[in-house]
């Protein structure tokens, strides 16, 4: 079921080009007439907040005739917002965008950028998990975490200190990947998509019975984390600020890590490692336009060369693969051109059914725990 990422890229590029020509004409006409910029309001995933706050982005958008007002929220939360007075929604994942489009017939969407899911971790953790046969160096020149082997470790209730020859992180906590709240956030939903694919015998969950069947294996990977943050900025902040003691492994967007590294402010230390889950999934940042102004903004974001190169600086991948390589080279970073093992998320309904089931478990607690009342 793995989809060739080159094919995805090619399709994306095609789409962008077709849209691009038309919009290019529109925007140059608009530029020369230069009316007062229109104010465009939208909900975005928190992972794009810094991009939209960047003065260069603000200026580029203004050049295109837009003053963009954004509000951040988790992607699933965005999908359920009241869009009165809102021109666009820009969640991090295709399923949330799909839901918004479904509920707002006639809307359009565009994918100006995308980023694969990745795991922010640490050199000692990589060594431990390599020894345990969970992490390995791939032919593509990057580190990959075998999700199936990882899930087997979790199923055995493995503690970090149980791993062979562990002197570097002898901690009693469970081997787990920190995610966001699967009930509110796209990055956790993407993690769920990966886990469900593996638990379903390497098949995208296509029926609710399949979803229900794999849930027993998946639920502990979320529930045992305890309290989780509602959006993706939180756990990555923990990783950067509180370090390995709080966040030995965090499910993030590749873009978060690359952008942080590109800042060159020393917050990415030599001990930090980026590992890709195998399989991984692409988080497609999908702009759903709810008004004509929103649609114009979407096209401009996808096609304006300056905005595309600014998006690269935020670690996002765009249709401009050469630009992505140049960005990595300019900051002495390495990231795979091509990820070998990339899957598709389930449809919105299947994903939503699994999230609702998890929500139910969160609400009632693990089955056999009597809870005294205060």
């Amino acid at each position, binding site marked *: 079921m793995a989809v060739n990422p080159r094919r995805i890229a090619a399709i994306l590029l095609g789409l962008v080009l077709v849209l691009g020509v038309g919009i290019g004409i529109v925007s140059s006409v608009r*530029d*020369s*007439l*230069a*009316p*007062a*910029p229109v104010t465009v309001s939208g909900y975005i995933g928190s992972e794009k907040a810094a991009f939209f706050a960047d003065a260069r982005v603000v200026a580029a958008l203004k050049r295109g005739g837009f003053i963009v007002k954004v*509000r*951040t*929220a988790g992607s699933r939360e965005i999908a359920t917002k009241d869009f009165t007075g809102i021109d666009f929604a820009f969640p991090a994942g295709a399923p949330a965008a799909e839901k918004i489009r479904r509920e707002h017939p006639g809307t359009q969407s565009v994918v100006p950028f995308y980023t694969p899911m990745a795991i922010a971790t640490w050199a000692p953790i990589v060594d431990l998990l390599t020894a345990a046969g969970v992490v390995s160096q791939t032919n593509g020149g990057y580190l990959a975490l075998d999700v199936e082997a990882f899930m087997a470790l979790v199923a055995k209730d493995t*503690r970090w200190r149980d791993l062979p020859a562990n002197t570097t992180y002898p*901690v*009693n*906590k*469970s081997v787990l990947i920190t995610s966001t709240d699967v009930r509110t956030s796209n990055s956790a939903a993407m993690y769920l998509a990966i886990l469900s694919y593996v638990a379903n015998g390497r098949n995208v969950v296509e029926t609710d019975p399949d979803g229900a069947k794999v849930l027993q294996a998946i639920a502990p990977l979320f*529930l*045992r*984390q*305890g*309290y*989780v943050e*509602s959006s993706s900025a*939180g756990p990555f*902040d*923990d990783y*950067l*600020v*509180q*370090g*390995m*003691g*709080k*966040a030995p492994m965090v499910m993030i967007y590749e873009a978060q890590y690359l952008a*942080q590294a590109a*800042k060159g*402010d*020393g*917050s990415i230390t030599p001990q930090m490692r980026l590992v890709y889950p195998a399989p991984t999934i692409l988080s497609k940042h999908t702009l759903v336009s709810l008004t004509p102004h929103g649609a114009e903004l979407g096209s401009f974001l996808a096609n304006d060369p300056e905005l595309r190169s600014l998006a690269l600086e935020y670690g996002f991948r765009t249709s401009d693969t050469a630009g992505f390589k140049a960005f990595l080279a300019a900051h002495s970073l390495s990231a795979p051109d091509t990820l070998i093992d990339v899957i598709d998320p389930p449809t919105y309904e299947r994903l939503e059914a699994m999230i609702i089931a998890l929500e139910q478990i*969160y609400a009632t*607690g*693990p089955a*056999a*725990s*009597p*809870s*005294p*009342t*205060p």
Partner: protein
Amino acid sequence: MSPVNGARRVAALVASLVVAGSLLGACGGGTPDAANTLDVMAGSEIKDLEPLLPDLEAATGVHLNMTYIGTLEGAEKIAGGAAADAAWFSHGKYLSLLPGAGSRIVTSQRIMLSPVVLGVRKSVADRLGWSNNPNVTWKDVQAKAADGSFTFAMTNPAASNSGLTALIGVASALSGSSDALDAGKIDTAALRAFFKGQALTAGSSGWLADAYVRAQGTVDGIINYESVLLSLNAGGKLAEPLVLVYPNEGIVTADYPMMLLNAAKRDAWTKVADWLRTPDVQKRLMATTSRRPAVPGVALDARFPSQTLIELPYPARLETIDALITAYLDEARKPASAVFVLDLSASMDGDRITSLKDALSALTGTDTSLTGRFSRFRAREDVTIITFSSTVLDERDFTIDDTNPDGSDMTAIRDYVGSLTTHQTTGIYSALDRAYATVADKQAADPSRLYSIVLMTDGLNNDGISPEDFAAAYGARSDAVRRVAVFPILFGEADSKAMQAIADLTGGRLFDAKSNALGDIFKQIRGYQ
């Protein structure tokens, strides 16, 4: 090209006119600008940021209108729909899990960090081998607390975030799994052994630090925010410094989120949160409040240990936290002996005695609000009510075996309180002296409880012994009895200076029921019992 330039010039002109207009608007009014004022409901632990607020306002143009409130009380108010633009406590997690409150959090940014850790008197840390020892565990602390060789101060988890945070960490560590707790994994026996060492409690982290300073000769350590412990070490009031212990199983860190509640104030909130998270402000917060930066790229200064701090997970469910607090109060903590000294002089007639009866009755489990549930009398608690006017009128003992609000134990208190009637003059100090005599007897019979005295009076002393006689009698009592504090409640025409003097003499804290409802004050005081 020229039309473009022309258009840009027009746009620039329009922009500058807009700017000029808004400047005029800002200068002309002089009235507070509602859009740039944030009403913030804040935890008392954030009060130390006050000196920063003028600079915040100068830099952002946003005025913060701070209202300080206890965590649980704040959570209850927010869940109840109280108007506030933002909330700012040491933790947002309990709030976000609370039905009706979590949904009000529009967005949130953490501002600073402070783990809840253990501070141990240097000589004690040396004796126990805990100085410069990164391998000390909560289990080690539990063992020394259980065998009587280590005592500590900690706030009441039902009243204060530092206590709750510590309880979550300790319970998670003692459960053996270090996983996120669920209610079924709470090891009450292990917690009971741990809390055998708790010699001092309080309803607020700041007050606990003051109480520790007073008791430093007799209490071996204090569990509190790292920032409070570092400030104590820098404060010059300790005979010996505290050795900070970061137990090996892990700790739980407070992250001081500023939470937006009113979506209409998003712009002002964003300015404030962004400013607070700038590297310079983060450095200043670290220097002046001893809290850790919450943003990447700001290095810790030399006061903070460089070791990896293992963070224990926070429970995912409110029910787990509530079960944990209940287990602490009903089973794990040292049982409380609460002495209430109540003024029944003639001036208490009418509304006053009615509100007193209501306030006390509410503690018998009939108040089902969030704060009510956590301030009620608990299992194993010993409640003594001493009533007085010119002399002591009566003294009654109640023991809570059955926590059911309709059971015989709670009903007995309610019936008794309901029967109280007023009498003549006011003999405050004779009644207090009697309370200490009672505490002395009880403590001799059972030293394993935490004792406290609440004094509720609405008038001036005009009968019985003098304040000086009382002070002399108090001074002559044993060390252990003198460590029992009086928490006076200011009510009616009570003399605030005289009441403050009683609090100061005995190490208690004055509560003001002149400007607060008596019922709320009784609930707050429960945090100190």
